[in-house]
Structures are given as structure tokens and as C-alpha cells.
């Protein structure tokens, strides 16, 4: 039987109940036998649908004429800004990191900005979402490294500066990405938790200030996640052979 249950979802913020570590994942909205869909997955779908809808509506009428729609201008500004940031950070002239950075940035930004909707639980405040995003980066690092420097160049990274550092390098490969997921999760969870604790004491105006601060933190976190993904992916570069100047 398909069961739809929104009751738990709605009474959570109203009682100002302090929420636990993985509580978003334990609130089941849809249930079909043993299969269930929790709030995190549902909200991820909402965010994905929103991004797709905006992108589709904007790119439907692209124009280079004098009259350019507002949405096109806004998205062009966003893409150009992130392109400049990614290229400056990675030091590459090609836009190879732009797709990954843009995808991560848009998804996390929309997730974090939608927290101002009272009953929206940001998917980024769940460890499963942030670790999935970190897994994307974890796969992207060897992909870009092998693409740019070859397998040899990628494996050489592990025995630099001395082969003695091999275990340390392998650990840091895992934990740098792990820390990325944990950082996003920690920031978003602390924002959500602080707002819910505060709304238990002062239900009216005071949580608003914290939510506003949360919007700022959320956008900075989205920027940092995308930029760190670019930094880690571009850590292995093509060996630059210095040109011998012959006169």
C-alpha cells in the first residue's frame, strides 16, 4: 500500500523540537511496503526540479539581440563569474572544471537558500547528501588528474615528496574529501539546529535574524564546496617542462 504521511514533517518545527543527527533521514514521507522515501530525497527532487525548470525556461528563448531577458542576463553573469573563479583557481585556461563546479554550486546554493521556506528541510543538512556530493568529488579527482597528467602523473602524486609519505598521501586523499562533506553538513546542520533551538525560546522575531545569517553562510558554503572541488581536482597538473632558451 502506498502511504503518504506528512504529519511528522509538519509538526517538527512548530514544537521547536530539537532535532537529532540523522532525523531528516528518519522522517518517511512516502511508504510502499518496505520501500520508503524520506524528506531528504523528496527535497532533493524538489531542488532538482526547480533548477531544471529555471534552466529550461531560461534557455528556451536565448537571444543575442538587443533585448535579452532578465533571467538570461542573471544566469550568464553567474556562469561567467564561476568560470573566472574556476579558471583562476585551477590555473587552466580551458573550462574543464566549470561543469562540475557549476553543478555542485547550483545544487548546494538552491538547497541552502530554500531554507527560508519554513517547512523545507535542506537536503544538505543530511550527512547522506553531503557525502554523496563528496563522493562525486572523490571520483572527479582521479578523473581530472589522469586526463591532465596521465596515469603515471597521477600515481606520482602519491610518492611525492618522498616515497615514505605514501600512506600519508593515501590518507589525505580520503580525508580531504571526507572533510568537505562533513564541513557542509556541519555548517548546515548547525544553522538548522540553532534556528530550531532559538524558536523554542523566542518564537517570533529572533529566529529571523539567524535565518538571514544562515542564507549568508549557505551561499558561502556553496561557493567554498565548488571551489574546493576545483582545487582538489586541479592538484595534479601536467608537468611543465621549462623551455630551453637558445640564443
Amino acid at each position, binding site marked *: 500500500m502506498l502511504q503518504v504521511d506528512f504529519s511528522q514533517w509538519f509538526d517538527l518545527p512548530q514544537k521547536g523540537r530539537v532535532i537529532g*543527527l540523522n532525523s531528516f533521514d528518519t522522517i518517511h514521507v512516502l511508504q510502499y511496503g518496505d520501500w520508503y522515501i524520506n524528506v531528504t530525497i523528496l527535497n532533493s527532487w524538489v531542488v532538482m526540479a526547480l533548477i531544471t525548470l529555471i534552466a529550461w525556461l531560461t534557455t528556451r528563448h536565448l537571444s543575442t539581440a538587443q533585448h535579452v531577458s532578465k533571467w538570461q542576463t542573471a544566469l550568464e553573469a553567474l556562469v561567467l563569474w564561476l568560470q573566472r573563479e574556476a579558471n583562476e*583557481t585551477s590555473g587552466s585556461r580551458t573550462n574543464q572544471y566549470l561543469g562540475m563546479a557549476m553543478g555542485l554550486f547550483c545544487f548546494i546554493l538552491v538547497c541552502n537558500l530554500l531554507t527560508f521556506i519554513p517547512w523545507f528541510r535542506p537536503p544538505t543538512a543530511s550527512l547522506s547528501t553531503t557525502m554523496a556530493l563528496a563522493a562525486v568529488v572523490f571520483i572527479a579527482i582521479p578523473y581530472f588528474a589522469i586526463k591532465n597528467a596521465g596515469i603515471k602523473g597521477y600515481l606520482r602524486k602519491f610518492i611525492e615528496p618522498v616515497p615514505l609519505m605514501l600512506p600519508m598521501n593515501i590518507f589525505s586523499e580520503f580525508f580531504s574529501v571526507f572533510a568537505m562533506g562533513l564541513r557542509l553538513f556541519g555548517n548546515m*546542520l*548547525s544553522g538548522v539546529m540553532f534556528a530550531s533551538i532559538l524558536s523554542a525560546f523566542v518564537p517570533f522575531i529572533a529566529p529571523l535574524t539567524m535565518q538571514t545569517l544562515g542564507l549568508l553562510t549557505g551561499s558561502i558554503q556553496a561557493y*567554498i564546496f565548488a571551489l574546493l572541488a576545483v582545487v582538489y581536482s586541479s592538484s595534479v597538473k601536467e608537468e611543465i617542462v621549462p623551455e630551453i632558451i637558445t640564443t
Partner: protein
Amino acid sequence: MDSYAIIGAVSVFGACLCMGIGSIGSALGEGRAAAAALQAMAQQPDEANRIRSTMFVTLAMLETTALYAMLIAFLTLYANPFWNYAINQ
């Protein structure tokens, strides 16, 4: 004092200590990093954008230690494995 009370008291005490002591280092480090970045921006206003983006990334990396402390604090408060041990006994 039964085991529930001991576990509860130690958890809250540990979480507070963890958060308080754990954030000292990261706060001092972030302050130093931001001060250095502001100084560099004042000296070279042309490079301000680049310095700012690097500063944000550095701050995020420095913040990680405080976030680890926060995660441990949350774990001791909300997902404490010793609660289940005490309940099952």
C-alpha cells in the same frame, strides 16, 4: 547515581568542553588568516578579488577542526552509543 544519570551528565559536560576547547584554535587561526588577508588587500587593492576567494577557501579549511568538535559534541548528545548499552542492560 545509576548509569543513566552518569551517562547523561558526562555526555553534556563532555559536549560543552569539546565545543569550547575545540573552537579556540580554529577561532584564533581564522582571525590571523583574515587579518593577514585584509592587510594584503589593503596593500594590493588590484589583487583584492583573488585574495578574497583564496581567503574564503582557507577559512573553510581552518573551520574544519571546529566542525569536527561540533560533530563530536552532537554525537555525544544525540547519537551516544552508550545510551543503547545502558538501555539494553
